[in-house]
C-alpha cells in the first residue's frame, strides 16, 4: 500500500481492508491474591486499523489499553475473540508468530529500559535482523537509523544507550522496530518518559514514517494532547471496553459519552465546565452491571439520565460491543447518548 494512496483513503473516509483488527477480543487474567477473582482486562473489543492509519487508544491506567495492545501484538492470547492481520487470524504457533513479528512491531514507553545496557546501538538494532536471519545486516541497520533521524548512522553504531539522550534512545528503539519493515507499529506511551521539548520531534517522526513508508500505528496513551497531535482516529477505553470512537475533531469538539466529556472538561483551556469525576477507576475484577461507567457517571448522578428515561437501563442493561466500522460520525456506547440521538 503506497503511502499517498493510504493517506488519500484515510482522508476520504473509505474504509479499506484493515491491516490489523480485533473481533470480540476478551482477555481475562486468572485471579491472584486472596480473592482469586478473574480480572477481565479487555471485555470485548472490535477495533480496526486501516493501512497507514494512526489510531490513538486513550484511557486511564487499568482500562485495559496496554493489554489490548499486547494482544494485538500477539504477546497475549485472547481468552476469546480473534485478532486478524491483513484479514488472516493470528496463529499462535511459534513459527507463525515469529513471522508475524515482521509485520507488527512494538515501541515501549521507557526507552532506557527497552534497550539492553550491555548492547551497543548497532547490536540493539541488529538484534531483529539476526533473529529473522535477514541479509545485508549493516545496510539495514544504517538505513533504519537514518530514517529515524540519527545521522550519520555510523557515528551511532558503537554508542551505548546510557551515552544517548532520552530522545535519541527512543529513536533507536523505533529504528530497531523499523528494521523489520513492519506494516504496523504499536507504541505504548511513546513520549511519556521524554522531555517536553523533545516530544514533538518523536511524534513528528511517527508522522513522517507514516508518510514515507505507509506505516500504520496504534498509539496507546493517556495523553489526549498526543492524540490531538497525530491521530487519525481516536478510541476511548473504559474498563475493558471502547466507549467512544471517532476522529479527534469529532470526539474533542463534541464528546458524547459522559466519560469522554469529563476527560475533555478537565483539560486546560477547555471550553467545557470541568467535571471532575470522583473516586478511582474501578477494579477489573468487579465490573459493574449494566453500563460499566454508571457508578461514576455524572449524568446518572445529576438526574439527566433519569430525565431521559434511561436511568433504569444504565444500571441493568449491558451495552453491546461497538462494531469496528460504523457511521462516519463516530460511535458511542452509552444509553443516554443513544436515547438522545434517537430523538
Amino acid at each position, binding site marked *: 500500500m503506497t503511502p499517498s494512496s493510504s493517506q488519500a483513503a484515510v482522508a476520504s473516509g473509505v474504509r479499506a481492508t484493515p491491516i490489523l483488527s480485533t473481533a470480540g477480543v476478551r482477555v481475562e487474567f486468572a485471579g491472584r491474591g486472596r480473592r482469586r477473582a478473574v480480572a477481565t482486562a479487555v471485555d470485548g473489543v472490535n477495533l480496526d486499523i486501516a493501512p497507514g492509519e494512526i489510531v490513538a487508544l486513550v484511557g486511564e491506567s487499568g482500562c485495559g489499553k496496554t493489554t489490548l495492545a499486547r494482544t494485538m*501484538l500477539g504477546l497475549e492470547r485472547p481468552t476469546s475473540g480473534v485478532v486478524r492481520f491483513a484479514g488472516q487470524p493470528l496463529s499462535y504457533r511459534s513459527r507463525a508468530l515469529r513471522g508475524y513479528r515482521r509485520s507488527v512491531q*512494538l515501541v515501549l514507553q521507557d526507552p532506557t529500559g527497552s534497550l539492553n545496557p550491555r548492547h551497543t546501538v548497532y547490536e540493539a538494532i541488529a538484534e531483529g535482523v539476526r533473529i529473522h536471519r535477514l541479509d545485508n545486516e549493516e545496510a539495514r541497520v544504517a538505513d533504519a537509523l537514518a530514517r529515524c533521524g540519527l545521522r550519520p548512522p555510523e557515528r551511532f553504531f558503537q554508542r551505548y544507550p546510557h551515552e544517548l539522550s532520552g530522545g535519541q534512545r527512543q529513536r533507536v528503539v523505533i529504528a530497531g522496530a523499523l528494521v523489520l519493515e513492519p506494516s504496523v507499529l504499536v507504541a505504548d506511551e511513546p513520549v511519556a518518559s521524554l522531555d517536553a521539548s523533545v516530544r514533538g520531534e518523536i511524534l513528528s517522526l511517527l508522522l513522517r514514517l507514516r508518510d514515507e513508508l505507509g506505516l500504520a500505528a496504534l498509539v496507546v496513551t493517556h495523553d489526549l494532547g498526543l492524540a490531538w497531535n497525530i491521530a487519525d482516529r481516536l478510541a476511548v477505553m473504559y474498563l475493558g471496553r471502547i466507549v467512544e470512537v471517532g476522529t479527534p475533531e469529532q470526539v474533542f469538539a463534541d464528546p458524547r459519552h459522559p466519560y469522554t466529556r469529563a476527560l475533555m472538561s478537565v483539560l486546560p483551556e477547555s471550553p467545557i465546565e470541568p467535571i471532575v469525576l470522583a473516586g478511582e477507576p474501578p477494579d477489573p475484577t468487579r465490573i459493574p452491571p449494566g453500563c460499566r461507567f454508571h457508578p461514576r457517571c455524572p449524568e446518572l448522578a445529576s438526574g439527566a439520565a433519569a430525565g431521559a428515561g434511561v436511568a433504569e437501563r444504565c444500571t441493568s442493561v449491558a451495552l453491546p460491543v461497538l462494531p469496528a466500522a460504523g457511521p462516519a460520525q463516530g460511535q458511542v456506547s452509552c444509553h443516554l447518548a443513544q436515547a438522545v440521538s434517537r430523538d
Partner: protein
Amino acid sequence: MSAPAAGTSTAGRGGPALPPSGPPLTPRRLAQARRKAALARFWREFRRDRRGMVGLIVLAVMIAVALLAPVLANSRGLNPIYATATPNTGPSLHDLLGTDNDGRSVLTLLIWGARNSLLVGFTATLISMLIGALVGVVAGHFGSIRARAGRLTDNLMMRVTDWFLVVPFLPLAMVLARTIGPSLGVIILVIGLTSWAGTARIVRAQALAVETRPYLERAKALGAGHWHQMYRHVLPNVMPLLLANTILTVAGTILAETTLSFLGLGDPIRPTWGEMLGAAYSNGVGTGNIVWLLAPGIAVIVVVMAFTLVGHALEAVLDPKLRGR
C-alpha cells in the same frame, strides 16, 4: 538565521574517542576497541580498592607458586622413598620448614599442596558454577513465563536444587570415597555436586529480576526465542553477579577440600594442604615439627582470605555499575 545544531548536549555525555581515521572501521574493530576501553575502566576502578588489590597480589603469588611447582621443588621430594632427612624435625637450613613424618621437606609438600589444593578448588568451582548458572538462568527464564509449563519447569528445577542444597556433603563424600576409592577426582565431584545449588538460587533470583526489564519484552516482540533471550539478554546481565559469586565460592571450595582431605578422603599420594593437616594432626605433631601443622593451616587461611577480598572488591566494582545502568 543560524541553523540549530542538534545534539550538542551529547558532546558532554562521554562518548568514546573514536580511533583516528585510518583503515575503514568495521563494527568488529570498533567493538574490540570498546571492549578494551571497558576493561581498562574496570581495572582502574578495581585498583582503587586496596584490600582487593592485596587479595589479588596474594592470589597471583599463590597461583604462580602452584604453576611453577615443578620448578620450585623437585617432585621427587614427594616420594617417601627418596626422603633422606631426619623425620619430624623442625626448620633447618636444609629444610626451611622442617620435615614431616616420612622425612619429606614440608616446604616441598606445601608447594605441591598449593598446586593440588588450588586445582581442586578451581575445578570444583568451575563445575559448580556451570551447573548453577545453567539451572539458575533456565529456571529464572521459564519461571517468568506466565504459562503453566514455564512455572512447572521452574518449580521442578528448584525442587531438585533444594534437594542438592540440603544434601550433607560429608556423608556423601565418605560414601563415594568408599565405593569409588579415595582420590582428588572424588573430592572434586563431591564438592561440585554439593555447591552448585547455592549459586543456582542466586542466579535464578537475578534472572527473575532481569526478566522483568522492558528489553526482554522488546526481544520477545522482535521474535526472539527462548535460547536467544537467555543467551543474549539474561546471561550477560547475570554475569557480574555470577563472577563475584564464583570467586567467593572458590574460597569455600578450598575449605571444603581441606576438610575432606583432613578426614583422609583424599588421595594420599598427591598431597594437598588438607592432607598435610590431617597427617600432621595424627602423627604426633606435638612432639615434633609444629611447622608441619602450622604451614598448611596458615596457607589455607591466607588463600581463602585473598579470594574473599577479591570477591568483595569485585562485587563493589560491578554492583554500582549494575545499578547505574
